[in-house]
């Protein structure tokens, strides 16, 4: 197991390097200088700024320097927010916020999704099942910005229960986390329900029940074990989705997280910020996938990694 983990961690480096290379190539090949402004900038000034970002040097040199700036966490100055270092001033403060939001959304979606899935599987075809399944399906059938906006109108304005803007107190976090968790919850609920339904009539469930274990414990202990595997393997892409979805949620609820920076930096052609965001995001995903695979390996004795 340790060897497996170590090998995976070692693989991070070439993977990240490949990701960096692809992104770098796309950026430098994209048409248009990042320093276009509404009024003409004197040529000399633009050249000076380009020099600041090694843009005047041959691309292989740029590649190396930028990589060094990233790897050593020195970071470069953002092209758009000129006074801010992309790593220290832009991403570092925003990262814990997005992480907190994302983790909360994931945790909520796992718990809520699994619970909903269990109930709807157990009380199959009942009214509760239909309601829960219906709700779950709604979560994967509507775009997240629609869900977020409707939640704001419903809970913030019409009912007045929760604040609309900002992120300072736990009340302010409820709506963003729920919006972000909507899709994964629904997906996990469906996964759980399907897996539970697969397992419920199965032989060993019958055996377990016949052994005299009370009904509830049977379902939870034995059914869930089987059902949890697909959920676990979904957590990897779920994390990816949560971080992408965070852009919408952060924009609507005015939360200063990294999700917003990913997209804005691309639209602004802010090369250092784009590269830093890409690397941050990729590292997160790789770590997340590794954790998921570790969990998977520990749970399923049929799967062996070496």
């Amino acid at each position, binding site marked *: 197991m340790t060897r497996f983990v170590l090998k995976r961690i070692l693989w991070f480096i070439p993977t990240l390097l490949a990701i960096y290379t692809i992104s770098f190539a796309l950026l430098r090949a994209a048409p248009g200088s990042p320093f276009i402004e509404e009024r003409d900038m004197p040529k000399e000034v633009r050249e000076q700024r380009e020099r600041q970002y090694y843009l005047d040097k041959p691309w292989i040199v740029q590649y190396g320097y930028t990589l060094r700036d990233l790897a050593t966490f020195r970071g470069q100055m953002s092209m758009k927010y000129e006074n801010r270092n992309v790593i220290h001033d832009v991403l570092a403060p925003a990262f814990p916020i997005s992480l907190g939001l994302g983790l909360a959304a994931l945790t909520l979606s796992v718990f809520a999704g699994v619970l909903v899935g269990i109930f709807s599987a157990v009380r199959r075809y009942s009214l509760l099942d239909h309601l829960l399944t219906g709700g779950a399906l709604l979560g994967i059938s509507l775009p997240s910005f629609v869900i977020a906006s409707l939640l704001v109108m419903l809970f913030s304005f019409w009912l007045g229960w929760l604040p609309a803007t900002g*992120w300072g107190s736990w009340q302010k976090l409820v709506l963003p986390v729920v919006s972000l968790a909507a899709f994964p919850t629904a997906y996990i609920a469906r996964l759980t329900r399907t897996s539970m339904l697969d397992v419920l009539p199965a032989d060993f469930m019958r055996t377990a029940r016949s052994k005299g274990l009370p009904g509830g414990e049977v379902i939870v202990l034995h059914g869930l074990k089987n059902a949890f595997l697909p959920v676990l393997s979904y957590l990897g892409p779920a994390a990816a989705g949560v971080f992408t979805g965070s852009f919408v949620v952060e924009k609507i609820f005015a939360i200063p997280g990294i999700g917003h920076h990913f997209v804005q930096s691309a639209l602004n052609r802010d090369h250092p910020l784009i590269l830093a965001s890409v690397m941050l995001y990729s590292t997160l995903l790789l770590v997340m996938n590794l954790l998921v695979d570790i969990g998977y390996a520990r749970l399923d004795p049929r799967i062996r990694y070496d």
Partner: protein
Amino acid sequence: MPSRRWRGLLWGILAVCILDVLVLAIVLGRALEDGRADLRFSQGAEVATLDPAKMTALIDGRVASALFEGLTVVEPATQKARPGVARSWDVSPDGLVYSFRLRDDARWSDGSPVTAGDFRYAWRRALHARTAAQYNYMLFPIRGAEAFAKATAARLSGDAVPLPDVGIEVVSPTELRVLLNQPTHYFLELVAFSTYLPVKQSCVETVRDGKTVDDKQWVFPGRIVSNGPYVLTEWVYKSRMRLTKNPHYWNRDAVRVGTIDIFPIEELNTCLVGYERGELDFITAIPTLAAEELLRRHKAGKRPDFAVAPNLGTYYYRFNCTRKPLDDPRVRKALALALDKQEIVTKAGRIGQPVTGVLVPPGVPGYTGAEGLGHDPELARRLLTEAGFPGGKGFPKLALLYNTSEGHKKVAELAQVSWRRELGVTVELTNVEWKVFLDRCNKLDYDVARAGWYGDYVDPNTFLDMFVTGGGNNNTGWSNAEYDRLIARAARTLDAGERMRVFRDAEVILTEQEVPILPIYNYVGAMLAKPHVKGWHPNLRNDILFQELWVERPEAGR
């Protein structure tokens, strides 16, 4: 019985939950508390920069006028200059020499006095190519300023050219003399503009590797030294900016709002919900459909907290005059005459924007603009036939370019329908993001492009001098010698009335004869403020002077 494997999983889940709670606790713990501000304000997007020399956006300018004070201050209601750091001034009879006498009680927020030297430093810095100030041309009325800017640019690329003198003289620490190229009637208003704001040299500069350079972080709280009614005590990016009353400001007794929180909220709906719920006291970012309804209710007397005022700005379309068939003025006129601007204002604008056929908005004192072209589809069709495209036959598809925005899209869609309906001309819409849009406009890579312009000062020049041959903001490929001559003449004209007449003649060429641009409507600015917020009024330049506001019930709670 949970096996060992499962116990591991349960521990894992527990660990994740604890981590989660920890992260959230950290996040919330670092969250912004320290009490509610006296005024909670939002103008939509976050400020791009607080460096007065570098800022270009209106929202940046609002914060700048709270943090810094220039020689003069422009009153929002009258748009006239009143004394700021300069307590009085003299203008020479030929209008070329301005002598400003500064207050001796004007102080920076660190207690040191504001001197004429600070202004000289700030202005030269704004001109210097190293600063890359986009608005450096605002300083060009000053003698030698443009040459100076060019010389510093040449020096940056290695040419050892001499630096020319600039007409900014420090006569004494409290007297500043400025020499102009030509009489500039709006100069007193101009020196209130953000590019002319003073900055303290010792705050801005720092020594790095033995060289003196600009400290890129000088604008941040804790380092920034400002001379205006407020100081920047906190700036959590994209979260909150807090301004606190400057104890060293000379007019501090007149400043009644102690702390102001500025929240950057990009989503207009969220901003409005926040205002309606009482989380915000004063907003300028309002979704169009809501603003329309608010205006209706306001007129019925039901929403006194809403106000709307004409702004000094114009929304227009540019024609690429280097491309066929747009190089023919008849074609351009036809397009201008056929466009149903009233429909655009009703369906897309929605808050009573006035339709316009000219570039300079109403509200410039002493100026009577040209008539412009009206709405005459019949004439448009005749012109198009004359130009060789009867009924639109043979007319190539026009590419209409705009930067991504719901508002611009709606206008473009209506224009598309208008031209198809009246002229049989097919238009294809393309939206690109802002940077690409600017690039394509600069490169003349479009047929028709959306444009908008807010006047930097209340004078026709700020609008009309854009379209001289080769002007940086021309971007139409249009060039007219007579127009250039008229604009240059206006700059030299001493007599105010004569000058305005010259501008009018120029505008006639621009909007009636040649029509390289298609003005559509003039901007209108909307604001929403709770009843307890006083001292604000929507105005021509959409300014907000925070030092003039006061709050009548500043107690906690909604």
